[in-house]
């Protein structure tokens, strides 16, 4: 799915969270929205998902205007920063939620749903945890369950808000590789938000560096690092190790 962000702006109660920004996210690629906190990257991600409405501008999904498409019909797989797993449901129920929420005639049968849940649990390499509750999982396991839940509905794109933010360094490295593998296997257009330069540069095909509600530079990781377009990009990436 090709995502075209066309002059999207957003203000909350008079403060400008996003100045008009434009960005083209190619189909099947993995794009990182990179920037410090308050740069507007999460707001932009939520606007793509339909969780916020833009104050002005348009979102085009595969060329069709989706600016006012309700969140339920955008078919995005969204992984929240704190994962937002349903705490009163088991892992199986969490993953099956999107399939069970469908209207009756589009809903798969019970057997089909459990088969899909099994497949997804295998995909995230946690086949044994289906009956547990989220509170009984480690941080890394929760993140993978959130990913499986987002993939269950066969979304058109995968959006992740600081997907590795709350994890320790070793788990983070494992999960990064896992996300890249899942991305490559499914071919889903993926956008993730991060404040970690190294994460963005090592994982993404395309990086959009953001600051103060503006996109400073868009490019391949190597381009952005070798030819920073602005002083901000230069100083922000300085701390990252060379690729």
């Amino acid at each position: 799915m090709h995502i075209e962000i066309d002059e999207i702006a957003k203000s909350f109660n008079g403060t400008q969270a996003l100045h008009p920004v434009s960005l083209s996210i190619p189909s099947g690629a993995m794009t990182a929205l990179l920037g410090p906190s308050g740069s507007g990257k999460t707001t932009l991600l939520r606007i793509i998902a339909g969780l916020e409405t833009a104050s002005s501008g348009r979102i085009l999904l595969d060329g069709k205007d989706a600016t006012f498409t309700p969140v339920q019909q955008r078919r995005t797989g969204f992984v929240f920063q704190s994962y937002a797993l349903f705490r009163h449901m088991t892992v199986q129920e969490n993953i099956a939620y999107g399939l069970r929420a469908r209207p009756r005639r589009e809903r798969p049968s019970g057997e089909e749903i459990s088969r899909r849940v099994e497949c997804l649990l295998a995909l995230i390499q946690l086949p044994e945890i289906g009956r547990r509750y989220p509170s009984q999982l480690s941080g890394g396991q929760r993140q993978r369950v959130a990913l499986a839940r987002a993939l269950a509905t066969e979304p058109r794109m995968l959006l992740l808000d600081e997907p590795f933010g709350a994890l320790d360094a070793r788990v983070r490295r494992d999960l990064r590789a896992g996300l890249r593998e899942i991305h490559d296997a499914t071919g889903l257009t993926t956008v993730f938000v991060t404040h970690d330069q190294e994460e963005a540069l090592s994982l993404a095909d395309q990086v959009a560096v953001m600051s103060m509600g503006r996109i400073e530079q868009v490019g391949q990781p190597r381009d952005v690092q070798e030819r920073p377009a602005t002083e901000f990009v230069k100083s922000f990436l300085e701390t990252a190790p060379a690729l």
Partner: protein
Amino acid sequence: MHDAALSPVRTESRPWRTGLIIGVMALTFVLLLAPLAVVFAEALRNGLSAAVTSLSERDALSAIRLTLLVAAVAVPLNAVIGLAAAWAIAKFDFRGKAVLITLIDLPFSVSPVVAGLALVLLYGSHGLLGNWLVAQDVKVVFALPGLLLATLFITFPFVARELIPVMTEQGRAEEEAALTLGASGWHMFRTVTLPNVRWALLYGVLLCNARAMGEFGAVAVISGKIRGQTTTMPIMIEMLYNEYLSVAAFAMAALLAALALLTLALKSALEWRHADFLSATRRH
């Protein structure tokens, strides 16, 4: 050393701790349990049959029926209104939110008698809406609608107050997750919002119910205390007691207390039955 690190630090000596625990238990017994026990003892002073006979009188039955009816209408209504108010306050930002929170607490800070008087002034025959209501042939004061309005006013905060902190703490993330997974607003409410607050909601409803059945002040003013027509159980108890019919008064009091204890037992039973589930899902 590992075990020592896990057990909490205690500065109190063992006799101190034992003394404190015994003291609290004794206080609880004297202040809470003893009065309740006396009520039951007094009710059964002339035997169970005397108590049952006094409860089967026409006026007594009418009071019991009225109390149950008022609770049956007021509690569900306040549960729905309280849920809506808590949702609005916890999940959205809007102007006047602080005012709304203060207003919800109003029944807690206003004396029930004052609330009853206010309703009489508003809906009574000389009140602001009284003339219009008389013209429509609707009786509010000294009738069931008045009792309901008073009970709704008094018990308004219970459900909302229980829900607001729980809903605020849980935030919107799980609801948003449900929406991105394709759930409609109503499906999200049914499968995510409501299950997440069900214990707080139950607790609020039980408190609301206890107060709806037990409310005296506001109801006493607006009911006019018409025996057999607008007397609820608490008012009936006072009337019987003032007439020196102490067995009848205490029998009714015991029944009212038993209804409250029943709701409390119900809550404990539910918590006990779902203990595993609760321990697994709390503190996520």
